[in-house]
């Protein structure tokens, strides 16, 4: 084992860098899904659509900026604008018109309603953006590449992949933990999560908190999509691909667990990268192998604790 590690240390180093970037993207999507479940107790299948719409919106705004000759750094403004727009517009719309009517209903009804919404939003994407791949890479190009030494060679990585993605994911994790535990609104969210009836009896406007939380979760999904957009080509079905992986993360982490989502995303990111280098046949199944392995040992998920607060 030690010999193998020594022989492959350079490749493992590359795998670590790739894994961190991938984990960052996975975390950004899954954390929103986890937050929404923790507070609303709804498994939102349409979360993948919010990711996709965030990505498409970021690409559209970025392409618009580019067509106006605006500087390349405005591509980053496009990413933030897209996340805010989706969170502020679609989030309240979906929560008010649909989710509010199904709180507390059977899981199967919630799944059906959010799945129907997912299907509708998939078609909306096709109507608005068509079926041909959409892409814009201004944020990527703006920061350029960094050459990482690799023996006598160098391997170019994009600075976006090395610094921006992990940096934003880490900042999001810290900010979320601080927000939920150190701010009044965050504590109110935790109170509603823990016991909605008791929180309401104490004068907390639970309906408003749920609206706020869902919109925030939608914004996080959109931000995940926006951050992914410079590196990928957006096509129909991208939301479906995302939601499957997000569910695996959430189930592994424990529903409602933010730190768990971060750790799981990291495990999946690193596991997948190492698989690509040393056992590519397993790349596709690595996230699910990790999920199965964790759930066999801890059925409630890595950080899940039965009947305790979920945020």
């Amino acid at each position, binding site marked *: 084992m030690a010999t193998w590690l020594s022989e492959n240390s350079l490749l493992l180093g590359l795998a670590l860098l790739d894994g961190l970037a991938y984990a960052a993207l996975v975390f950004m999507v899954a954390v929103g899904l986890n937050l929404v479940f923790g507070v609303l107790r709804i498994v939102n299948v349409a979360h993948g659509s919010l990711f996709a719409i965030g990505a498409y919106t970021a690409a559209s705004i970025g392409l618009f900026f580019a067509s106006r000759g605006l500087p390349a750094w405005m591509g980053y403004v496009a990413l933030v604008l897209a996340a805010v727009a989706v969170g502020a517009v679609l989030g309240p719309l979906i929560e008010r018109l649909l989710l509010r009517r199904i709180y507390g209903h059977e899981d199967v009804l919630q799944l059906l309603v959010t799945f129907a919404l997912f299907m509708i939003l998939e078609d909306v994407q096709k109507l608005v953006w068509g079926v041909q791949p959409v892409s814009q890479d201004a944020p990527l190009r703006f920061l350029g590449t960094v050459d990482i030494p690799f023996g006598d060679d160098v391997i170019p990585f994009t600075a976006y992949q090395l610094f921006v993605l992990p940096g934003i994911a880490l900042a999001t994790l810290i900010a979320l933990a601080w927000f939920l535990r150190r701010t009044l609104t965050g504590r109110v969210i935790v109170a509603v999560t823990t016991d909605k009836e008791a929180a309401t009896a104490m004068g907390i406007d639970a309906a408003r908190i749920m609206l706020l939380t869902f919109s925030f979760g939608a914004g996080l999904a959109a931000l995940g999509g926006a951050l992914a957009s410079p590196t990928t080509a957006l096509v129909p079905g991208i939301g479906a691909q995302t939601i499957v992986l997000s569910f695996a993360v959430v189930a592994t982490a424990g529903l409602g667990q933010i730190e768990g989502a971060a750790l799981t995303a990291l495990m999946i990111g690193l596991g997948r990268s190492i698989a*690509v280098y040393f056992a*590519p046949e397993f790349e596709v199944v690595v996230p699910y192998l990790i999920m199965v392995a964790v759930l066999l040992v801890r059925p409630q998920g890595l950080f899940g604790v039965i009947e305790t607060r979920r945020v």
Partner: protein
Amino acid sequence: MTEAVTRRAALLGAGATAGSLLLAGGGAQAQGKPSELRVGITTFLSGSASVFGVPAKQMAELLFEEINKAGGIGGVPVRPFFVDEAPGTDHLVGEFRRLVQNEGVQIVFASISSGSCLACTPLSDEMKKTTLLWDCGTQRIFEEAPHPYAFRTQGYGTPEVLAPLLYLLKHKPDFRTLAVINQDYAWGRDSWELWKAGMDAMKPGVRVVAEMFPRFGATDYSTEVTRLLAARPDVILSTSWGGDLVTLLRQSAERRLFERSTFVLPIAEASMQILGRTMQPGHIIGARGDHWNNHPSPKDPARLKRFVDLYRSKYNEYPIYPCHHMAQAISAMQAAYAKAIAAKGGGWPNDQELANAFRGLTFDSPTSSITLREDGQGLEDQIVGLSSFNQQYPFAVPKDMILFPAAMVSTPVGQKSVDWLKSLKPDFLNQVPAPIAG
């Protein structure tokens, strides 16, 4: 007349067997022209493969509109019935039966996915309904069993892989290492098996330094790109397509992978417009046929221009290869009906007569002409070239093109593709024609 019979039969379906429905439909056709020629078309209308399916549908609608304006086929207007392949083969099999039994289609176009075609061809046998395999590429269709009612109106996997391989062997004969990165589904795996068989036969000793099959629909290839950068293969093969290929190539360009390795991309054509200047010059690109919009010597230049302009005027994009494949199927259908009607002295053909008309049929495509072999497989030439940029197109098009005659790169009737490819010798390269101007 057909419509009336089948509609009534559908309403009374509780008491009618599928056999009686078929007999009723067949009888109606045999007596005279139907009020409309119903065409069932299976294509991807949703999901990631809709990047091919929707442009093909749009092309079909444009062409049917033109045909109907000109009086239809044999004086009968054409009416398409589109079905989405995306829900999967179980759903598609049901839809195929519905199209035939309930909608009374006289002919079916199926499909983009090889899995869909493998599911539909046995149905064409069972229901005796002429089925044109309009886009799928699997070599298994006609190599594993005869299908008297199925015809493929374009090339297929073997020539589409062999032609770029031959081009590589001519263009870069000294390569020693190769990596493959294909989508993890039937085409990705099958095309690699075909390539490997041919490469090992004609250039033994090439070292495969990486075999990667990322998830179909993967949104990030950065890890794979890093591995390829580290492995430094002389050649990188990818038969991927759609968003997957665009993502792979964009990330490769961003990280200078194009500078280290020569890419071979047999299905690149459909992604060139999306990639624009991101695609790098000097890499080997194919189009699943000879249907480049900059075909240097089309059979009828005016016809190709008309075809391209028709699509561009409506959608402001150049037609990609699925549009060409759809046009080929429609052209084949027109030619077969004309042949069958003439053979019947002006009468409308029944299912058997229509199928007979397809065997050995030669029909025009927007770029050339295609002949259907005795096993139902279409012989379509392949053009492969090096990516390059010119003043006319804002995206990469091929230069130094080689036109591979279909008969040269297609598996002979009665043989299995992998076995045939394994039997090729290095001197097979001597048959490769010289590049054509363009």
